[in-house]
């Protein structure tokens, strides 16, 4: 069985190699090859999963040592895999959702002439992501970590002819680099502290190192997680990443890659458990991001950006849960999996809507689409019910557990965290209801003529499809709807399945440990409060967007709305705090370089040049002037000799 682990990574890697190197010869069949290899990887994952289920909980972890990568004295970097329950969960999520999205992309990218390349990148992403979760040491994890960053960059900028996409890709890459530096420093620290960076020695010896060092490692790991998972303060790239094709947003920027940070924190649980200060920072980051993402999600009119805000917010929940320690790890991963289902489903739904609406992303130009896209409506609706935590659907179970765990943190902290998570749940319900109402209910605003106010921005689209006088919403082809249906099933049932007999928690317990949290109030009260806040959020959204007609042009809005539309000024803050001082610094350095360094060098050269220019005049060719210098020199020598005598 161990030998199969390599195949998990090998299949998509092979696909990427064939698709990216094959050239035009594989253009016609390339996308099916990509789907096939992703599916093969999923089948291997499923076989390994069934095999794992048949074993005792303690014997489930598989190890495979492929080869020694850099064997130098005490520095032993191996390419070795470890497949335990946590990795298995990720493998199934990545390959399962990945395969579905591969199938969806066949339809979605049908008219793109670079479809083969797109599938090559998707396969590359799968390979890198699987490497990330299967690695048995931090260095190999880092390889996968960089690999997914690369794939993300390539896919965000897939339509690089659009300047906005090219800029967004660069932004994602650069912001992620900050986090990657954190991971690299964490690995350095581990090596100096433990003499190794393999999971087993580092994590089992974690308690022996000093708390200060563990806190440093934990904070650096958190920095890495912030970059990859778009947590405050490195969150700015995720909204712009929506420039990529929608399947990419669904797979990479909702279901899998952005959850790598949560994986990293959960995997390094032993370090965080021994460093309470780092844990507190993790919790704070999670809480801030969950509110931040939710508020941004409320104000965006772009359907994908609203969902991106929501993704940030939901990952904030996971990070918060992971920061709670053993009472939260399992729930973080559980929410991660259910979120993978419903958020991927929501993104695919959004893609389907855009597909039927001439790539229009402004929700204010949607409305009443439920008649035209019944399958999209139902699957999106189920995903919607799941994410707001409607009782019985998967989001309800996973989010409710996190809220309970937040209260169970205890003391004032517990109350604050509980309140924040509850507030987040209410805002989640609000913005998701808003998306739902704007898109599928209300007037058919896409029939309205474009108001002259924002005509310049909308004109190119109107020209292209102008002869029909607006979009003709239609249901998407079957290759797109089937993955949405499967994901909708997952959104509905996954949570309940995990909850029955706490099966998911017991499954992960050998890896992540588990302690029962005891909330200060009974679990039923917390659940009740969750449902009530959720209903309040839904009601508020209905009052604002369901009962009244929605203007096609966004009203100016309050100060908060306007700030939230600009992502709560994240870019302005980054600009003011990082970009501007950076510019001044480089300008200063350029000034110092050109004036001081160059000045010194050029000045020396110029002074020698000038001096020799003067000296040259002595060589005037007149014998008498040479004679003067001879006499002068002789006189000086005589004078010097006399002077020395006198002294």
């Amino acid at each position, binding site marked *: 069985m161990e030998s199969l682990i390599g195949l998990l990574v090998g299949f998509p890697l092979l696909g990427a190699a064939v698709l990216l190197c094959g050239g035009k010869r594989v253009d016609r069949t390339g996308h099916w090859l990509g789907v096939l290899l992703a599916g093969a990887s999923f089948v291997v994952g499923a076989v390994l999963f069934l095999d794992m289920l048949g074993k005792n909980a303690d014997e489930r972890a598989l190890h495979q040592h492929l080869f020694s990568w850099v064997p130098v004295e005490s520095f032993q970097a191996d390419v070795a895999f470890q497949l335990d329950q946590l990795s298995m969960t990720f493998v199934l999520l990545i390959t399962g959702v990945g395969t579905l999205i591969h199938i969806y992309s066949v339809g979605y990218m049908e008219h793109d002439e670079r479809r083969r390349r797109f599938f090559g990148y998707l396969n590359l992403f799968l390979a890198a992501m699987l490497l990330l979760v299967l690695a048995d040491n931090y260095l190999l994890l880092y390889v996968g970590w960089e690999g997914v960053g690369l794939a993300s960059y390539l896919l965000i900028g897939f339509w690089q002819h659009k300047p906005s996409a090219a800029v967004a890709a660069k932004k994602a890459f650069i912001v992620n680099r900050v986090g990657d530096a954190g991971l690299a420093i964490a690995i350095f620290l581990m090596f100096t502290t433990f003499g190794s960076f393999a999971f087993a020695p580092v994590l089992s010896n974690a308690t022996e190192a000093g708390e200060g060092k563990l806190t440093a490692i934990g904070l650096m790991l958190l920095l890495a997680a912030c970059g990859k998972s778009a947590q405050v303060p490195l969150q700015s790239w995720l909204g712009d990443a929506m420039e990529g094709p929608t399947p990419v947003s669904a797979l990479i920027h909702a279901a899998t890659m952005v959850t790598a940070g949560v994986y990293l924190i959960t995997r390094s649980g032993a370090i965080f458990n021994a460093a309470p200060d780092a844990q507190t920072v993790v919790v704070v980051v999670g809480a801030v991001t969950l509110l931040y993402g939710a508020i941004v999600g409320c104000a965006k009119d772009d359907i994908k950006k609203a969902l991106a805000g929501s993704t940030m917010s939901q990952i904030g929940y996971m990070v918060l849960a992971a920061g709670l320690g053993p009472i939260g790890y399992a729930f973080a991963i559980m929410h991660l999996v259910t979120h993978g289902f419903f958020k991927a489903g929501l993104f695919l739904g959004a893609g389907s809507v855009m597909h039927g609406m001439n790539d229009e992303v402004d929700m204010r130009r949607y409305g009443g689409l439920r008649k035209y896209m019944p399958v999209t409506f139902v699957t999106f609706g189920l995903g919607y019910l799941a994410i707001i935590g409607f009782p019985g659907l998967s989001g309800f179970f996973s989010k409710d557990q996190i809220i309970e765990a937040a209260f169970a943190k205890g003391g004032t902290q517990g109350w604050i965290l509980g309140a924040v998570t509850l507030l987040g749940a209410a805002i989640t319900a609000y913005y998701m209801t808003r998306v739902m109402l704007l898109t599928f209910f209300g007037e058919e605003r896409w029939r309205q003529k474009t108001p002259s106010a924002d005509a310049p921005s909308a004109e190119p689209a109107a020209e292209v499809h102008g002869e029909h006088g607006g979009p003709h919403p239609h249901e998407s082809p079957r290759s797109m709807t089937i993955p949405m249906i499967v994901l909708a099933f997952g959104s509905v049932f996954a949570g309940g399945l995990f909850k029955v007999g706490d099966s998911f928690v017991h499954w992960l317990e050998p890896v992540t440990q588990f302690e029962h949290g005891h909330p200060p109030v009974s679990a039923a009260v917390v659940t009740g409060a969750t449902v009530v806040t959720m209903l309040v959020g839904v009601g508020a959204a209905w009052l604002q967007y369901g009962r009244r007609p929605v203007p096609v042009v966004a009203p100016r809005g309050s100060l908060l709305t306007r700030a939230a539309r600009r992502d709560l000024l994240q870019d302005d803050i980054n600009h003011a705090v990082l970009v501007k001082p950076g510019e001044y610094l480089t300008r200063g350095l350029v000034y110092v370089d050109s004036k001081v360094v160059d000045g010194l060098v050029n000045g020396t050269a110029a002074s020698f040049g000038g001096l020799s220019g003067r000296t040259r005049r002595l060589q005037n*060719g007149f014998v*008498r002037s040479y004679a003067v210098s001879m006499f002068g020199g002789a006189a000086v020598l005589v004078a010097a000799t006399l002077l020395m005598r006198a002294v």
Partner: protein
Amino acid sequence: MSPVNYVYLAALLFTIGAAGVLIRRNAIVVFMCIELMLNAANLTLIAFSRIHGNLDGQIMAFFVMVVAAAEVVVGLAIIVMMYRSRHSASVDDASLMKL
């Protein structure tokens, strides 16, 4: 008369010779001034020889005379050649060697 006076005379002759070399343009005159300087040097050699009471300086003076004679032969030849090609004996006209 004290032999030191010959040294003063030599210094005077040398100064006149040096001034002539620096100031005059005519190559012949410059040449004669050089001779003057050489002979001033000879005079000091002989004067010091007399003062110290040995013959080293006088022997040295003979050497100088021989060298001066050889120099006159070469120098006059150059001046004559220069005058032939340029119709001038001015040392300032021969300034082509500058940069």
